[in-house]
């Protein structure tokens, strides 16, 4: 496609298959203590 550049794959639906292991960091334990950003946490699922 010469007019549209896609930056990433459609990952959200795929992530549901093996998601929910809960091993990732809690967002407030990183730096935010008064706001909430979840999307910058790393996935730590070893079976992904």
């Amino acid at each position, binding site marked *: 496609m010469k007019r549209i550049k896609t*930056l990433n794959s459609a990952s959200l*639906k795929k992530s549901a298959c093996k998601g929910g292991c809960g091993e990732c960091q809690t967002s407030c334990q990183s730096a935010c203590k008064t706001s909430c950003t*979840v999307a910058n*946490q790393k996935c730590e699922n070893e079976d992904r």
Partner: protein
Amino acid sequence: MIHTFEMFDKYIALDVNSGCVHELDKLSYDVLNFLDVKGLDPEDDEALFKTIGEFKREYDSEDIAEVIEDLAELKRNDMLWAEDDFEYNDDLKKNAPVKAMCLHISHDCNLRCKYCFADEGQYHSGCRELMSAETGKRAMDYLVRNSGSRRNLEVDFFGGEPLMNFEAVKEIVSYARELERQYDKVFRFTITTNGILLDDDKLEFINREMGNIVLSIDGRKEVNDRVRCRADGTGSYDSIVPIFQKTAQSRGQDNYYVRGTFTRYNLDFSKDVLHLADLGFKQISVEPVVSGEETDYSLREEDLPRIFDEYETLVREYVARKKEGRGFNFFHFMIDLDEGPCIIKRVSGCGCGCEYIAVAPNGDVYPCHQFVGSEEYKMGSIYDECELDRDLRNKFAACNIYSKPDCRDCFAKFFCSGGCVANACLINGSINKPHKLSCEMMRKRVECSLYAKAALAE
């Protein structure tokens, strides 16, 4: 759901439910917006007919047809107009084990920061109190006992000022290391400090034992010292900058954050972020102040245009410095589009009140650090044999982006996961009613983050 926006020289589309981000040229951007607003399916002939009719004076018909075919292909591949079929994930926290704990090791502080949500360390209790090592150890026992199959456990030493009770911190860490071996768990420790008592000995221990350290500083000297001051009114900047710089270097410029708060006093906060970068820090977070009642430092709705401009100024410089090889990370612009958290985490949010709890110095348990001291939200105690308040736990477990009407049509919902529950409660009195001002700023930060991704992908 699609969200489109322009920023500087970029035309960007986020397909909310697939997570796909597309950079478009002006023609494809215009066509996409037209189809989306009109509710036209790019695979139907009607879409082609109507779009050519709309844009024939501006664009060539063959080019329009080509764009529509591209958009149709993206739709077929679930990369545009993807369905939201994630609502089945909304009760996953119901029986979730506890995996993270904010340990209030010190309800005392050697600073008197004017905006402190922790009531300058006292958490509205009227007294200053340190957690005993014994209570801390019991909290570690509690965490292991309630963590089920979760292996990675997180503990944040928080305050007040945790370094005022550092001997207890050391004892608790040592005890937790024994539990790790006994129960095959991994403890990840974080400590949040204002730096006044940070010295080489403490730093050596922290670097050995803590996976993360959060260093509180607001930016420029005059900005920091106006609000982050001692009881005698003197500012903290000169005392903390050298040891913070040493800390960052000693950790290889990773696994730490300098973390600041911006208020109405410094709406030009991009200068503070860049000041921290100029001091050599590579991991930076500066967040908007949140206050329950309006004060002269509280952010107001009328400040939003200025705040949005600041985020744009910041992201432009953020990208420029990355391209020049002297970049830094800004916590709220860091988004991993491919390897980020799964949709289940994004639906669930921060997990406070179920996966994540806070423990006060006397062992009382609250949903998170921001609720500590609020009798209404006391969930129990680590000294109780009985389980935590089931009604409260269920209330927090049921809180997710689908329990919040305001999130349903928001393009940022899978980035912020419904926002900070404590802020919602503090400002709107309900965990399911997000704080509007925070939402507006979050949406702007998401746009800036996506712009940065596009600009850095060139």
